[in-house]
């Protein structure tokens, strides 16, 4: 490394600060200062600057560890569905569990939405809209053009059933997301 040690350290700390952009200014200052003091203490113990920086890892990777830990802890602490969902989505490219969770939540949401839309449109065209059972035994929720070879199953019960579907989707989706993020958190602690 041709640069002077002071310049190398300053560059590393500057890159670390950039990488910590998602953190508050106070947290950023604390982490950068703590890292600087840690590095100086290691150098006083006889290690070279290069060895200390190598043990910490590249600045952007080191920063991402803080960002990951903070984001996951914040989302789990608040239990806000949007925060939890975004934390999972940001890890979907590197976690099969996250992909499966997002797919499950999406399927639950689409199912609940189909019942809500059907219940909302039911009063306008009750002859063609509802939960249908075809002569082949398949189920369809929504609108059909020819109801003669289908049997409508719910009638006015579509409204409470839609409410139940939304509740189930909400509770189950929330459970799946929290379980997934806790699992991801357990894997990323070291």
């Amino acid at each position, binding site marked *: 490394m041709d640069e002077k040690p002071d310049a190398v350290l300053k560059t590393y700390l500057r890159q670390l600060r950039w990488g910590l952009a998602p953190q508050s200014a106070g*947290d950023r200052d*604390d*982490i950068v200062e*703590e*890292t600087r*003091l*840690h590095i*100086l*203490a*290691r150098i006083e113990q006889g290690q070279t600057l290069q060895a*200390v920086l190598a*043990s*910490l*890892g590249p600045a952007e*990777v*080191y920063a991402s*560890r*803080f960002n*990951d*830990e*903070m984001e*996951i*802890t*914040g989302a789990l*602490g608040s239990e806000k569905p949007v925060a939890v969902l975004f934390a999972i989505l940001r890890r979907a490219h*590197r976690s099969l569990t996250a992909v499966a969770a997002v797919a499950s939540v999406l399927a639950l949401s689409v199912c609940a939405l189909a019942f809500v839309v059907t219940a909302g449109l039911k009063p306008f065209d009750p002859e063609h809209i509802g939960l249908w059972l075809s002569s082949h035994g398949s189920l369809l929720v929504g609108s059909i053009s020819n109801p003669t070879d289908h049997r409508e199953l719910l009638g006015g019960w579509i409204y409470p059933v839609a409410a139940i579907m939304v509740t189930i989707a909400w509770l189950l989706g929330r459970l799946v997301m929290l379980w997934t993020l806790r699992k991801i958190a*357990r*894997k*990323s*602690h*070291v």
Partner: protein
Amino acid sequence: MKFGRSKVQSQPTGASSVEARKAQLLRGLMEIALLHLLGDGPEYGLEILERMRRDAGLNVAEGTIYPLLHRLEKGGSIKSEWRVDPAGGRPRRYYALTKLGTDERQALVAEWHRISAAMNAFLRE
């Protein structure tokens, strides 16, 4: 052996699979060891790292201790404050258990004793 994130996140194959499993096994232990260590009183990051290596036998990678400390602080298990060394040394950020962290420490250590005793007996069979 270092328990670095990059090793853990890679897809394990062959010998690296064993290393990845060892890392997985020791992940939770880091948190228990940290909370137990802080039960002795406030400590700063470098000393925590050294004691986890020396006293707990966990070869914790250098770049993993501070993210863990910050996560536990954000979660309310520990708190921190900057202290200036009266002898004129550099300031240090000391970490200490909160009431929540003390309760978590007791629960986790008790669970560890229960599991380790059961597993030791099981593995001797």
